[in-house]
């Protein structure tokens, strides 16, 4: 299966500069700036109404910014040349009900110069066996898969996905992520808006956190976790907590019965140190910091600061 798309190596595919979007008197995005590099999987996080979907619509060219500049694949967002290289999966409530899966896919394939073959689209979107089914006869999850199929059928080098796995069961969600990984390995860039932290953990190579129309974090998942969440190491050790707190990366130490609990922003070296100092250490348990922990921490701090 030849899925290869073509993107410039390490080039910036999306450049958003000082973009503001207003709806009447309401500011949905307030002077937002960021860049996304080719091959990245940029995950947009934020509470409802934070501006994620507005941003996706701006990037896809469905909305116009009130101020600022957006460049997508070296063109303006929504430029015909850009649209031919991008795929968009939106949260839409209706697709013509009486057309079949095959009719929808072939219709969208006809818009592109070098679309994926029909078989490739069906395989990637896991719609095998449903080709002749009408849209109205599909389950919610199958409809979601068809929306994904319509987004990928043009062999895009840039994909915008708005909550792509929101209606999928666990197995379908894992399969979807697998297909996204496959496309990404072939140099497709993704911008994904999601509320699902598992999805963010799995997909993200770049995270942008929105809050009330502003970007409050723009970095890698590692940045987010390292700066806003602590990993937790629990163990039964004879080491003195007063010594442990002096270790680099250790932020807090608790002693609960026999168990010592360390809150750290770097796990490996701390564990190595504990084991080298006390080889009798037992009941070792590590809970790594998650994007969800960091996100919640970051959001709480932002709201507190405001």
């Amino acid at each position, binding site marked *: 299966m030849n899925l290869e798309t*073509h993107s410039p190596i390490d080039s910036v595919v999306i450049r958003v500069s000082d973009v503001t979007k207003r709806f009447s008197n309401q500011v949905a995005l307030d002077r937002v700036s960021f860049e996304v590099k080719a091959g990245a999987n940029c995950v947009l996080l934020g509470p409802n109404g934070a501006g994620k979907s507005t941003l996706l619509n701006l990037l*896809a060219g469905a909305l116009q910014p009130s101020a600022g500049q957006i460049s997508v694949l070296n063109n303006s967002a929504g430029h*015909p040349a850009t649209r031919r290289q991008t795929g968009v999966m939106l949260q*839409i*409530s*209706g697709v013509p009900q009486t057309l079949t899966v095959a009719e929808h896919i072939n*219709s969208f394939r006809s818009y592109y110069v*070098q679309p994926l073959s029909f078989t490739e689209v069906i395989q990637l979107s896991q719609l095998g066996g449903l080709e002749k089914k009408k849209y109205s006869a599909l389950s919610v999850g199958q409809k979601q898969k068809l929306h994904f199929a319509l987004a990928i059928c043009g062999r895009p080098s840039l994909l915008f996905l708005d909550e792509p796995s929101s209606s999928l069961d666990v197995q379908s969600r894992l399969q979807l992520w697998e297909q996204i990984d496959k496309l990404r390995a*072939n140099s497709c860039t993704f911008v994904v808006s999601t509320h699902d932290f598992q999805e963010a953990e799995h997909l993200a190579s770049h995270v942008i956190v929105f809050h009330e129309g502003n970007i409050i974090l723009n970095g890698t998942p590692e940045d987010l976790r390292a700066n806003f969440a602590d990993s937790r190491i629990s163990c039964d050790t004879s080491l003195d907590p007063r010594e442990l707190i002096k270790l680099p990366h250790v932020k807090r130490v608790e002693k609960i019965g026999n168990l010592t609990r360390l809150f750290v922003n770097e796990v490996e070296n701390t564990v190595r140190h504990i084991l080298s100092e006390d080889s009798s250490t037992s009941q070792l348990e590590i809970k790594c910091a998650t994007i969800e922990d960091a996100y919640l921490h970051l959001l709480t701090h932002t709201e507190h600061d405001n």
Partner: protein
Amino acid sequence: MPIYTYLPTLNMTTKGAMGYSLVQLLRILYTESKLEVIKCLRLPAFSSSILSFPLIVYIVCGVLIDIDVQEIRADHYWLVAASSIGMIGTSLFGFGVYIAIERGQGWLLLKRVSPLPVYIHFLAKAFMAMVFCALITSLLVGISLIFGSADLGIQQIFVLIVTQMFCSLPFCMLGLVMGCAVSANSAHAIVNLIYLPMLFLSGIIVPYTYFPPWLQSVAHYLPSFHSVQLALSAIDASNSVNIFLHISVLIVYTIVLLGIGVMVYKKMENV
């Protein structure tokens, strides 16, 4: 991270504003039009109501009762009136209401962000309306030849079908304006508010010759009046000699409504 070579995918031989050659555009238009027709044919609520209303009008008024129409052969008049009801209904509901619904459900947005030139989407809908016009008129002609007393030659039938297909254009443009301006929830009601009075005021349901003079003058301003007169002329059943006036009025309506439709659409697009 694997290394990929940058090979722009858009270096195809150019071709037009959207980067498609004429052949490609026509192929897309054909596919879209075919799917629009299939979509509506498979929708019983649409196809049955759009087909049945004119059939009922023709069978009741033109075949069973044969209601007299001053100075015009009644069977010919009711054939044209019923096919005009179908033509206007298809254009306003199949074009206008469906655009409003597609807007409401996000389908039009998905089309807008795809590489499909959006005018192809609207053109495909206009072709769908034309196909339905041809279908309805053919059905009515078939019924009139079998059960009625209409005597139409092949040429008259052909000219009538083609006339009705092209007369649908100003109503499709009216549908475009309404589809882009009103919400999905209110589109059906608002289109009905325009459709039914228009049928009455232009003398389709009640022949225009029965109207008092002041109401007859109102009819002259409506595109539906001119489309009926043109269709009657197509089968030599009109007293009107102003064929070019009817054509001109319909062209002006088409252009003006297209202009308004494009403005409303652009306003919607540039939010």
